[in-house]
């Protein structure tokens, strides 16, 4: 079942020319990002005189500036914490509920399933106003933990839907075996079922982690005000929100913010592509 041998086939005519043209296109396409890298190493006056030119000398001064201005270690940890906590919660809640709802076949469970996946059709912007009010009443605002908890509610519907579909491929005999052997339902789930759901779990982790790391509006609404609990995306907003932008530091700040996501992508590239497609096609 190797897709590469199934497909592939002959190289089309002019394959080399296509590669060259596409490489040139890709470089033009990514040129804005290349410029960010180049300009993150320049001084302010170098940027103002010519953006395209290479820096006269390499210095990491902008990065150390951005590092302290953003309080990078602090915000990096905050963002990581939100992402991990939010993703872990979504995986846990969605897998258990998706499994349970997929196994019970009653009218009641079908209704619960519909209630659980309906939010996939509700855009965030159409309930954010009241969400802020609820978050405030529950004392979840201005706290990294609170933000992580809110992500559970927002992330579960799609993830539950993906688990729900995949559980059908796991034979019910396995549940019976585990219960005959005296496993409690919860233990049977964690020791027998969850390991078998791993392909979905990878997709769910990828989709949720990328979203939470990059999300802007919810942190803006929920964390407004508190300086010590901020995420990297909010820090970028503060950088560029000023009247007179210090481009050199801002460029370095952009790179510091996106590098973790880029590394995550380069390391897990195949899983990310697969996860994104799975989320889209099944969603």
């Amino acid at each position, binding site marked *: 079942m190797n897709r590469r041998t199934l497909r592939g086939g002959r190289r089309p005519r002019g*394959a080399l020319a296509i*590669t060259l043209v596409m490489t040139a296109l890709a470089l033009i396409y990514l040129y804005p990002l290349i410029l960010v890298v180049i300009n993150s190493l320049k001084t302010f006056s170098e940027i103002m005189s010519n953006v395209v030119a290479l820096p006269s000398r390499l210095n990491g001064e902008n990065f150390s500036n951005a590092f302290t201005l953003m309080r990078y270690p602090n915000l990096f940890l905050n963002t990581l914490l939100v992402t991990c906590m939010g993703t872990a919660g979504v995986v846990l809640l969605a897998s*258990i*509920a998706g499994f349970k709802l997929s196994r019970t076949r009653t009218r009641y469970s079908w209704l619960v399933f519909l209630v659980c996946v309906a939010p996939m059709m509700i855009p965030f912007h*159409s309930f954010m*106003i009241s969400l802020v009010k609820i978050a405030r009443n529950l004392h979840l605002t201005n706290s990294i933990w609170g933000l992580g908890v809110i992500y559970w509610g927002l992330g579960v519907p799609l993830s539950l839907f993906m688990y729900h579909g995949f559980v059908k491929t796991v034979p019910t005999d396995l549940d019976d075996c585990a219960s005959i052997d005296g496993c409690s339902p919860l233990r049977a789930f964690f020791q027998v079922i969850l390991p078998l759901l791993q392909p979905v779990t990878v997709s769910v982790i990828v989709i949720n982690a990328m979203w939470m790391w990059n999300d*802007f509006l919810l942190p803006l609404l929920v964390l407004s005000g508190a300086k010590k609990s901020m995420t990297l995306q909010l820090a970028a907003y503060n950088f560029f929100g000023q009247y007179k932008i210090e*481009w050199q530091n801002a460029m370095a700040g952009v790179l510091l913010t996106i590098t973790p996501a880029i590394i995550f992508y380069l390391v897990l590239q195949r899983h990310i592509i697969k996860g994104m497609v799975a989320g889209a096609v099944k969603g």
Partner: protein
Amino acid sequence: MTAPALVAILLFVEIPFLMSVLYSFTKWNGLDKAVKFIGIANYAELMTTDPGFGSAMIFTLLFTVLAVAATNVIALLLAVILDANIRGKNVLRAAFYIPNIISLIIIGYVWRFIFSRGFDSFGALTHLGVFQLSWLGDFHLVFFSVVLVTVWQSIGFYMVIYIAGLQTVPREQIEAAVIDGTGPVNRFFRITLPLILPSVTVAVFYSLSNALKTFDVIFSLTFGGPGTATTSIALDIYKTAFSDSRFGYGSAKSVVLFLLILAVTVFQLTAFKRREVQA
């Protein structure tokens, strides 16, 4: 075992959504305890006397049409090219996907830099007229700037969806067509495209709903300006609620956004699914 998931969803999505529907019939500034029921006055206002919402609606719809069309055509074209057996296709796919892993808010800021500082330098070097235009300051041109940045950021994602679809097309069918002497263009429109219609449905669905609720890129690139030239419905909701403190009125707008997205996507799905069956 389902209770925790259900509670989280109800608490953070569905109850706030239902509250928004209720608040849409009230006058409320978000702080006061007093919430005054005013019937459909909010809806009447946004339909008749609010030029801001009208222009946000027009901007969003025009933006959606152009962004969805451009995104899907370019992404499909890229997918077809990078699905062929050429050297370096995996690296090329990865390259076109990169903007998609960067947050939209950062994308907006990067392009603000390119449009302002970058275009100054390009203009000085090449003396081309396009770089001397005011891409973020001109009331008409800024529309295309927002579309350009959105398309640039998102084509990688849709390319990947289309590549996944193309990989399900059986080689024998293509080869049979080659033997029958069908040209590449005909082959694409008569065989490949009908076979990957499910991917088209998915890609158009996602690009539609993302375009209709576009927010982040505009927030960081133009903040809706100049004037209200690039204020989308989602940004208008944000400004109404959190800048003008009109929570009730903002809620009415958010209900309209929900209904708009629901209507458009349901229509799209039924229309596309019907064609899928025929194919």
